[in-house]
């Protein structure tokens, strides 16, 4: 039972940031596409901005790994 709860916590630690990242990237992506269409010289900055929300999932993944390693 305890292992199942740990697994669930680890899954949520990845899933919730992943959904938030998807939401943020959808918004940033559409605005970025519009910006690049008008000003192609901004493409470097837009790629960086698009990648920033990924950090949320990476942090979630690290938390999930820590949960599994420490308690499982």
């Amino acid at each position, binding site marked *: 039972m305890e292992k199942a709860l740990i697994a669930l916590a680890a899954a949520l630690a990845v899933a919730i940031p992943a959904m938030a990242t998807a939401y943020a990237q959808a918004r940033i992506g*559409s*605005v970025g*596409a*519009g910006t690049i*269409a*008008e000003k192609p010289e901004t493409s470097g900055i837009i790629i960086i901005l698009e990648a920033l929300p990924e950090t949320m999932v990476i942090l979630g993944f690290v938390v999930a790994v820590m949960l599994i390693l420490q308690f499982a």
Partner: protein
Amino acid sequence: MFLKSSKGFPENFGYLNARLRARFGDFLAREDYRRLASRSLEDIEVFLLDTRYGKSFRRSLIEQSLSTHRKIEMALADTSASVLSHTRNMAMGEPEDLISVILSRADLQNGRLLVRYFFIGIPYEMQPRWHAYGTLPVRFFAQLWKSPSVAHGIDKCLAFDHPLARALARALEQVVKGSSLPASERALLSGMLVCQERVLDSHRTKNSALVKEYLARTIDVWNLNIWSRVFSGVMQKEKAAELYLKGGFSLSPERLQGSPEPAGLLDSTPWENILDRSKGGPAEIAPGGAMREFWRWQISLRRKDPLGIEVAIAFIAHQLVEWRNLDSLVVGVSMGFEGDAILEKLILAG
């Protein structure tokens, strides 16, 4: 939350607004107008060749044997229509519907031209310069212009089978019945507003609420124009009461009928800025003041919400105001007016 957001096309608002915001830099600045107002028509011609109006202007130089003034007018109208149509083409879903509602002011303008044409009843070969960014195609209006009688025009409108065309048919029916010109135009405006509100009812969002406010302010402008005719003694109060439209933003028909003075009517409303108090006497409504204030309100929405319809409203208003400003500038310069006198007539935003 995600499903609700998808229905409202927020991603398209993001894309569209990013593109529009990048294009705000293309509009002429206050300094450009100031410089051009003191130059000659040829200087304006050279200046326009280097702007986004240059492409249309070059085309008109090759194709048409018209005066410089007329060629500039054509270039302004063509470029503005293409910019505004492109704005709608970039949108999809809710933004597209809302922009179509805003741009249907072109159908209203074209419809008014036709109502006035049939009201006067004198056949005239030369077609006016149609506003080519509305929902109804320009060829529809061009065909109507060629109609031998109002009855033919009404038949063509009904055959076209579009709600806006039916609204125009109802306005032309008023002309046939012998109603006054304002009454016919009122029928056109109210018919078109009903169609537009039906479009807005399919999107119950904060953005559609703002476009509803836009329509309500349009009603206010109409009502203010009728009221100012009463105030200046051109129209009787009883006649005006029949012409007022309900559903205005801040001016109800009751308030309009019960206010004999501009100050009493407009104080504490969004329109109070149009009161001309400069002469020290009783406040008066500046000529064209309501429309100018309406433009200013639209342009002021630019930074209200970067992911809402506000950006598109401000962009469209900016484009139409620039068209109007350059038109006034060209007329003023070709008539030899002083630079300051021309600048007074312009709406300088920002």
